[in-house]
């Protein structure tokens, strides 16, 4: 079905049945329903199947390197705070190669939406374990099954007091849409970890598996309570989905500009003032 945000003349490189299609549709619908102008919206991605998303949606894009979407997105947003900035990629990209940037971007709190396609496996490199692969998951490299403790992005983000921490399952589409909308409306860094199946390389964590092993956070979950959020983040049977935690604070751009936000492209230094400063030396 055609959508006004479809990019024309593209050759989509995803496998038939891939969970990425659902996320692409979700993103287009959320942007449209929130009336975010695509000409004021930029998707910054890394490398991997998920990171191909900005090639298929008609917003601005900066397709960067493996793991590097977050630092690019941070200063892009700071250069022009009126842009809507999205950093998007997969679990290997954002939690593996870009793990250090994930930690420090949460600490900086730029006003961006961080979308992570989490299928618990490496797709583009053909089926190795990802940081979120579960113990015992067998691959051509992890031949005895995964030994490493799975990376828990929710509890890591919470430990760093991220302002908006959410997880959704693309198989639960309407719930995912409600949460992603909230992420865009949140002022500050917002993490949305999206469970999605890899139909080729992950025969364990399938669409069906995600559907039967996740459940929406209860109505009485208090998303302003950090310790309750952390407790929920550590549950894994079943895995909770929804908004774990939300709390607004000063953003990276607030810290830099205060109340006078501007686009750096319009800034020129006062050379007379600079000359005066030089002459004090």
């Amino acid at each position, binding site marked *: 079905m055609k959508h006004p945000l479809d990019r024309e003349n593209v050759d989509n490189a995803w496998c038939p049945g891939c969970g990425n299609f659902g996320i692409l549709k979700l993103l287009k619908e959320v942007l449209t329903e929130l009336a975010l102008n695509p000409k004021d919206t930029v998707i910054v991605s890394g490398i991997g199947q998920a990171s191909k998303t900005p090639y298929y949606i008609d917003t601005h*894009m900066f*397709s960067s390197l493996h793991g590097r979407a977050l630092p690019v997105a941070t200063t892009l947003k700071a250069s022009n705070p009126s842009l809507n900035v999205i950093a998007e990629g997969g679990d290997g990209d954002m939690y593996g190669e870009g793990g250090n940037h994930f930690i420090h971007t949460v600490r900086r709190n730029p006003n961006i939406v961080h979308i992570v396609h989490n299928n618990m496996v490496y797709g583009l490199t053909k089926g190795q374990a990802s940081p979120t692969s579960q113990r015992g998951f067998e691959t051509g490299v992890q031949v005895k099954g995964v030994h490493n403790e799975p990376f828990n992005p929710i509890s890591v983000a919470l430990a760093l007091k991220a302002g908006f921490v959410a997880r959704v399952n693309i198989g639960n589409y309407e719930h995912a849409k409600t949460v992603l909308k909230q992420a865009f409306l949140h002022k500050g860094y917002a993490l949305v970890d999206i469970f999605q199946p890899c139909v080729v390389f992950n025969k364990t964590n399938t669409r069906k598996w995600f559907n039967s092993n996740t459940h929406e956070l209860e109505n009485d979950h208090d998303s302003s309570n950090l310790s309750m959020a952390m407790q929920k983040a550590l549950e894994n049977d079943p895995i909770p989905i929804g908004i774990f935690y939300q709390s607004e604070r000063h953003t990276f751009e607030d810290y830099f500009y205060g109340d006078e936000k501007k686009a750096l492209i319009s800034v*020129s230094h006062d050379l007379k003032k600079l000359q005066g400063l030089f002459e004090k030396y």
Partner: protein
Amino acid sequence: MKNINIPFQANLKDPPVPLPKYKKQQSDGKAQTIDILIGGAAGLGINILENMLNKAFMLNGYFVYSTKEFMSRVRGGSNTVLLRISDQPIYAPCWHVDLCVALDYAALSHVQERLTQKTLIIADESDPVMKDIQKNSIAIPMLETAKDLGDSRYANSYVAGLLFGLLKADINLLRKSVVSSFSEDTQKENETAMHEGYTYSKKLKNISLPALLQTSLIPKSNFHLLDGSSAIGFGSLLGGCTMITSYPMSPSTGVLNFMASISKEFTILVEQSEDEIAAFAMVLGGWFGGARAMTSTSGGGFALMSEGMSLAGVSETPAVIYLAQRPGPATGMPTRTEQGDLNLAIHSGHGDFGRIILAPGTLEECLTYAYLAFELADRYQVPVILLSDQYLADTINMIDNVDFTAYEQRRYIVKSDRNYKRYTLNKEGISPRSVPGLGQGIVGSSSHEHDERGQSTEDYKIREIMVKKRDNKLKRILSEAYKPEIQGKGNIAIIGWGSSKGAIFEALKLLNDPRLFQVHFVWVHPLNPEHIEVLKQNETNIIIENNVSGQFADILKGHGVHIHYRILQSNGFPFFTDLLENELGNIIKDIK
């Protein structure tokens, strides 16, 4: 987004910016210079003494120059400051000195090879070494005096007073400098210490010290005392820099500190990144969003930026990298100097793409070429590396007034229309660059091979076209490259690049041989063949480089230039005027 105003909008049709005029190195006749070496542990306040004396001698009408040599530690060890005071501009350090002040017991053994029979040694009377030094030495009660005043660091002001007394300079001008160097709570004690030192000097008899020129000194109010890091900072601001993202690393941090200090008064985003990989990615995010961004680093950090260089190359995103070299490989010697990263700068990043490397050698060049780095990065949409080193970054020298309005401001940005394509093909290979939110078009930048829209592609024909497009940029860059600076006429070329400029200039002055002429490269990459024709035609070429292999010599060789002699060094020191004079003298005496 509406009504974004782009100041100084320019395009590629405009000719390259004229290189702002700055004073070239000069000297009239023979200089009268006093060279003072001060040694002491880190934490003793040796840098305060350096700044205090620099300011005071400048107020007295002298040219001053100072350079430090220090260990990679916060306290202790043995560091030195070399001060050169003269009636002529000074451009380089010397190895042997006229006067040596030891602030602690370890200092004299650390510097002994730099002392000659004529060197006057000043040390504390309690220094055990003083017992063995009979000739040309003065034992002074500086530590006792300082301790009586309450803090051993007052010894610095005591030494300053003593030196002013010995050199018969105006103590009132030193007082001004002392007062401005300390906060109110220690001003009085420092002034007293200064006076004690001054008074003590007047009691000393039969001191043999070369005299400082006392007459026809011109007030130096037109001059400013600056280190290389600050000059790079001012140049970057002239270049419109609005963002610096860096991971601290010696000896590059001076620029980060400078920009941070100035960010309270100017709109500059300063962010300390989690690593150098992020620092570079942030620079690209900045330029992509419309900022003029830079990062500062040294060799080890720049090694991590290699992937970012490649991304800047393929995505044609401008970037400015200030790379202050120190001796490698790996950790090497963090606080020492070397010119060993030229090859790294030229070859960093996988794949073929253009870049520009600029290696300034004086404060004037630091300022001008830092400005140019931003202009060139924007104009050609390539990464530009400013190649400095520890010596240039930390050395304090005098710079004449600079007219900041002479630096033409330009921004190569277009508003996009509906049909905008980021990588539009044209003859130049340089597509008009827009940024997100500026106009009706979509800006797509890509790390993949891509088509004109920025969509990734594996089409072999588009691949070839895009590779050629990026390669074409190089032709334009080469045709607009700045020439090396040639001083003098003769048939023996003394070739250098970057920070060795001053030492070569002074060595040539001392040798005073009409056969010698200096060829100084700031624009070190890519080289325009026409610019090196002079070396191809020349009889004898001697290169001077602060690295073990002669990295630039090999590049010139690749261009067909015959290099007859290489003077190389890799001991962590800069080149010293007097040592270079000897070494060069030994080579040229055999040349007919």
